């Protein structure tokens, strides 16, 4: 094979998945039983159709066969012979899931599992058979297409069920091979000209309509193809050519009779005329077999035909539209090996093969890619253009600098700063995708869940165009799904309960995304029953998460649902409670450098707010100074900064000082000791404490000074140096010095490990305070 089709697979997978998303969105917009918007149906049809075409071409027979059944149903919907019922929409939705799984299997290089597609095909079959609209007859003409799909993917399980049901479904009359459908009416194919040895002689009368040239069809090309089959002589009938004044270059006035001696069947001859059968009168007759000696006659007669005096006028209209050097088929009169066109055809793949070898084969890589709007790329190019201008201006200045040009220099540098900043922002934007990528899955999910729970839920999306870093987007999907599931399962009440409480029967879930101070906020708001703090507290006490006597503010109580091992659902339902708890949701969000907040009012609903950093490459940091070093504390983890009041310091366990912060006892971690550096201030009293929080625990960092807050670009320590405990990365500050970004969660882990060890040692009766202090 000349072209390695595998190189196109990855693109096919990607576009199929995109197509399935579109299909799903379209299906969700359809109200079962109503005549849907034509454009919606078209979009759905197009998606299925493209997948079918591609999968067939790339040899994914199982997908092609499955999509074919889908397409049949959609085709009926498209031409109006079928209104899609709710059941049909459900079935189509399930099919899109099934196709997604099939594409996923192919992508992963796994065999396709047809346990889902089989039953779906049976269901489609039942649905299609259910009504006797003549549309099914029309659909049958597409059967040969699917049946003829070459089963290239022998590695994949061939879907017999699909095949069988398509056939039974559509009453397949499999007369057609790929190209000759529509032609069988042309001549009645029952006498299939005994194309035995030596070849038969066929007489072909071909009378094209005058307009045949208008569709780009050229009789000469047809003859060339026939001539490639065997020996041919032709006779042109020029009597219909009008006089010169009435001659039109657009029209064909000649008809032909051709005698072909070749070992071919009628169908093979008719196939040559496949594209023009509607534009000509065509008769193909078997006139004899090859016993007679033809060649000399052929040569003579066709030469005569081409060169007879009245011929120039005749050939003019034919050759004019597309200048062909030789008039008429005269070039191929000899019965001997004529076949020039035939020679070019096999030659083409050969050359193809060679150039394919020469071209560097791009391997089908599965590395993740990003689709960027052309406007973003354009703005980038624009900015680079400006940068180049600034650069040339500056180098011009530098080449012959004089003091009076100082103003221009500082202007130029200002401009450079501006360019760089804009360029940075622009490059960052390339990684950003609209959050609709994450939101898109919810309409379908809500529909399914509403059906399952019997609740009536309306989903409202807003802020879909808010952009989010691609990596963040990929990782926030599951937590969001969990939160939305919870909102339906635990939040929205059943319709009766809502009506009884004077609420509208239909529950509402709102998803919103917006920017707020360098963060993206994603809100999941429901108008359900709200969270009852008393229930939560009781449950938490029962689970031993908090002790009975504790008096917690409401917001702290809500936060308890994020504690590991907490689940309020009395019965673990099919929807939520799949083993992934809210603690995992919070952990995932935190690992992205984000946080989650709950607001809830009993009886009127809850709001979950997820705060996420715009990007993982840049962090908002608080610069702190310890001795001569500058460290960066991620702003998102800072609870507050305060000056230590000596009376609130408590040295319970000897060496580790605790700071009483309202209800909490916060361990104080002197950074200088942690990293073994010199500090200005080593006494706690009146020192500066930055209280940070991570993984549900707080610690206080003792620092010398608080400096500016600024955005810093995170550079990996691991890839540039090695992993360092307590440090998540580094950045380069404006003055060129390197500054470490503190890993708050890591520091907290270290602290708790240390205190556990200490406790262990204490109980062992050994260990001295000084040792711990050194640690």
């Amino acid at each position, binding site marked *: *094979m000349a072209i390695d089709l595998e190189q*196109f697979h990855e693109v096919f997978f990607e576009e199929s998945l995109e197509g399935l998303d579109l299909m799903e969105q379209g299906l969700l917009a359809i109200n079962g039983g109503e005549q849907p918007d034509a454009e919606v149906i078209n979009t759905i049809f197009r998606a299925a159709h493209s997948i079918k075409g*591609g999968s067939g071409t790339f040899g994914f027979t199982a997908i092609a066969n499955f999509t074919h059944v889908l397409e049949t149903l959609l085709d009926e919907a498209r031409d109006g012979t079928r209104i899609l019922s709710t059941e049909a929409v459900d079935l189509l939705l399930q099919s899109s899931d099934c196709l997604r799984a099939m594409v996923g299997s192919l992508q992963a290089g796994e065999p396709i599992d047809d346990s889902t597609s089989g039953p779906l095909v049976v269901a489609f079959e039942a649905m299609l058979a259910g009504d006797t609209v003549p549309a099914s007859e029309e659909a049958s*003409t597409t059967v040969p297409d699917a049946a003829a799909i*070459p089963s290239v993917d022998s590695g994949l399980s061939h879907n017999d069920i699909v095949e069988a049901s398509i056939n039974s479904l559509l009453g397949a009359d499999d007369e057609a091979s790929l190209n000759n459908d529509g032609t069988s009416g042309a001549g009645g194919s029952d006498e299939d000209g005994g194309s035995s040895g030596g070849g038969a002689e066929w007489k072909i009368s071909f009378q094209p309509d005058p307009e045949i*040239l208008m*569709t780009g069809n050229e009789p000469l090309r047809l003859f060339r193809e026939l001539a490639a089959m065997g020996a041919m002589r032709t006779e042109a009938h020029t009597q219909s050519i009008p006089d010169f004044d009435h001659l039109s270059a657009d029209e064909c006035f000649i008809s032909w009779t051709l005698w072909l001696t070749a070992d071919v069947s009628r169908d093979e001859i008719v196939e040559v005329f496949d594209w023009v059968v509607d534009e000509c009168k065509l008769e193909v007759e078997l006139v004899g077999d090859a016993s007679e000696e033809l060649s000399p006659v052929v040569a003579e007669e066709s030469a005569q035909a081409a060169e007879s005096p009245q011929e120039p006028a005749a050939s003019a209209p034919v050759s004019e539209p597309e200048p062909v050097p030789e008039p008429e088929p005269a070039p191929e009169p000899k019965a001997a090996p004529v076949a020039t066109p035939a020679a070019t055809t096999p030659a083409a793949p050969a050359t193809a093969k060679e150039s394919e070898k020469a071209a560097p084969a791009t391997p089908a890589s599965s590395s993740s890619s990003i689709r960027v709007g052309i406007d973003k790329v354009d703005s980038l190019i624009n900015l680079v253009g400006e940068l180049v201008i600034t650069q040339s201006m500056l180098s011009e200045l530098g080449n012959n600098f004089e003091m009076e040009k100082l103003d221009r220099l500082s202007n130029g540098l200002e401009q450079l700063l501006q360019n760089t900043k804009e360029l940075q922002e622009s490059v960052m934007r390339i990684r950003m995708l609209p959050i609709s990528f994450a939101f898109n899955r919810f309409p379908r999910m809500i529909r399914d869940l509403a059906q399952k729970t019997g609740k009536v839920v309306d989903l409202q999306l807003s802020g879909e165009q808010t952009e989010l870093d691609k990596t963040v987007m990929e990782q926030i999907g599951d937590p969001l799904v969990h939160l939305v599931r919870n909102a339906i399962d635990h939040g929205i009440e059943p319709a009766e309960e809502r009506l009884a409480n004077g609420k509208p029967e239909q529950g509402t879930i709102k998803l919103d995304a917006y920017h707020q101070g360098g963060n993206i906020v994603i809100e999941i708001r429901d108008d359900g029953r709200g969270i009852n703090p008393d229930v939560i507290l009781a449950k938490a006490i029962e689970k031993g998460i908090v002790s009975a006597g504790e008096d917690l503010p409401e917001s702290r109580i809500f936060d308890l649902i994020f504690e590991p091992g907490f689940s309020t659902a009395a019965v673990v339902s099919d929807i939520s409670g799949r083993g992934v708890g809210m603690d995992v949701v919070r952990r995932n969000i935190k690992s992205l450098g984000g946080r989650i907040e709950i607001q809830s009012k009993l009886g009127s609903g809850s709001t979950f707010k997820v705060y996420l950093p715009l990007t993982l490459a840049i962090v908002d940091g608080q610069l702190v100074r310890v001795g001569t070093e500058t460290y960066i504390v991620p702003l998102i983890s800072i609870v507050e900064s305060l000056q230590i009041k000596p009376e609130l310091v408590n040295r319970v366990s000897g060496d580790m000082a605790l700071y009483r912060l309202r209800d909490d006892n916060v361990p104080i971690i002197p950074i200088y000791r942690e990293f073994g550096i010199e500090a200005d201030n080593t006494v706690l009293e009146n020192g500066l404490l930055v209280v940070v929080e991570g993984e549900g625990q707080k610690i206080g960092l003792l620092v010398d000074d608080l400096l500016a807050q600024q955005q810093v670009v995170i550079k990996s320590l691991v890839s540039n140096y090695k992993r360092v405990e307590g440090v998540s990365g580094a950045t380069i500050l404006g003055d060129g010095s390197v500054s470490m970004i503190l890993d708050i969660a890591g520091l907290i882990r270290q602290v708790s490990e240390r205190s556990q060890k200490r406790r262990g040692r204490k109980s062992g009766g050994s260990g001295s305070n000084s040792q711990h202090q050194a640690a």
Partner: protein
Amino acid sequence: MAQILVVDDSASMRNMVTATLQSAGHQVKDAGDGQAALTIAKTGRFDAVVTDLNMPIMDGIELVKNLRSLPNYKYTPILLLTTESSADKKTQGKQAGATGWLVKPFNPEKLLATVDRVLS
């Protein structure tokens, strides 16, 4: 070799057709829908056009009609790439002025043979 315009909304098919034609030495430009194809067609001259039928914005049939109304494309061979072998689509395509069709699924050899058929 010939200048060919390839039109398909599916990137994988478009890439495949383009690469195949290029491998045979043809010069190829491509477009993702009929509207874009028409714009490209107006700026250049192509010896043949290979187009998908079902596309957003402007489908293959509309494209054929539009191309045929341009003096430069009055006789240019236009091939429809389609999975729909049903007679009515072909008829529509023919009426719009298409030269012929190539039924998906097809392999690169079949594509080249068919394109060769319409190139003089």
